[in-house]
């Protein structure tokens, strides 16, 4: 779906169309949840925060005038909700690698890989290591890496969501990735 189509859904939801809003939730739920998970570092809080994001979007719809890009409008609300949560909950959270006692299975995007189990296993191993390393980064590094590589925001969109300049986006991404690489190198992944 294009940005224009998402904008139309937002305007329809603003007019009271619950089905349009439900479509919007389904379209953005994974992106919002990913950000919430990597910012809160546990699934329980991630679900609460992600739900809160969509409730905030719903409550704010009367103020949406169609002149904001849906991606940046929605992800900015998500970013602020995550930061509000971090501010409220300053306790040390254990890092969560599992959910409900089982290793969290992430979807394998490349179907060809499934035909090669050993390659799929190696990829899964690497993915888990990278995810663990990501969770060890400071919040602003986790935030920008999630928004860029999992939520697919461009540098220009990152500028608007994070309210920083393009030079700062570039340098923050550079530092975030180098820090991530160092953690992975210590674990001999990279």
């Amino acid at each position, binding site marked *: 779906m294009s940005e224009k189509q998402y904008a139309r859904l937002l305007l329809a939801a603003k007019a009271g169309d619950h089905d349009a809003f439900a479509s919007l939730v*389904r379209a953005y739920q994974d992106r919002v949840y990913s950000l919430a998970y990597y910012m809160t570092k546990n699934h329980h809080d991630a679900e609460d925060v992600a739900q809160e994001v969509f409730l905030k979007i719903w409550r704010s719809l*009367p103020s949406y005038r169609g002149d904001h890009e849906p991606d940046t409008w929605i992800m900015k609300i998500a970013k602020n909700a995550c930061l509000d949560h971090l*501010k409220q909950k300053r306790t040390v959270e254990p890092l969560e690698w599992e959910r409900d006692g089982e290793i969290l299975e992430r979807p394998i995007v490349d179907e060809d890989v499934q035909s090669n189990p050993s390659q799929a296993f190696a990829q899964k191993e690497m993915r888990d290591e990278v995810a663990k390393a990501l969770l060890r980064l400071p919040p602003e590094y986790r935030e920008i890496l999630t928004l860029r590589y999992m939520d697919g925001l461009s540098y220009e969109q990152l500028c608007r969501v994070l309210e920083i300049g393009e*030079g700062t986006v570039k*340098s923050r*991404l550079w530092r975030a990735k*180098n820090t991530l690489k*160092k953690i992975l190198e210590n674990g001999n992944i990279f």
Partner: protein
Amino acid sequence: MDRCEKIEKLLAAYADGELNGRQKALVEQHVAHCPHCKALLDEYLALNDVLASCAVKAPEGFAERVMESVQHTKQAAPAARGVRLGKIAPFVGVGVAAVLCIGVLSSGLVQRMGQIFDHQENVEQEQQTAAGAPDPAPEDDIVGGAESAEMPTDDDAATMDEAATDMERDTYEESCAEPDTEAATDIESPTYPETAQDGMESEPAEDATPSTEAETAVPGENETEEESESESESETETDSETEEGEENRDA
């Protein structure tokens, strides 16, 4: 700073496809002849792919739970352009309450003052009657009493109403001083809390006093947990632009 160090800073953005034509050409030209930078670029590209695969799906039934909550949630009233109703409503309420209180107090005060002077007049009359003195002119006493007590007049009440309106206008104008053009999001950019649990501290805020950025040295192992706190973001943007200028000159 040698050429590789300059190019290294562009490699991550190149891997993201976010360099302009000139910078892209610079990088491609360099990595064609530099195995070190080529290997680094390959690492960034691989890391990009793995990061993308780290996206987490929302749990089963998430959208349904959201819609259940939405059913019980009302949408907020649309905010007036530049002003949040929530901001001025309390002040308007205070202003109205103030006007009402002044009105009530004024009428109660007039009544009470009347009672006091009636009583005073009666006492004086009794005293003078007892002393045999002629009764004083009642009007003179009332006038004298009114002047000395400074009873509120209709003009005074009007002045008080005007003061209340002024106060209401002042507070309204004050609340208008910070228009909220994005009702959906927080106005202030939130600052990051301390992250002691990571063993790493967060970077300083964007508006921190710029300090010399130490990006030339390759950070050691200990800096993994500490480097982010020593670098200033605001300095970085200037540095990048300076670097771009250097690149152009070198080319």
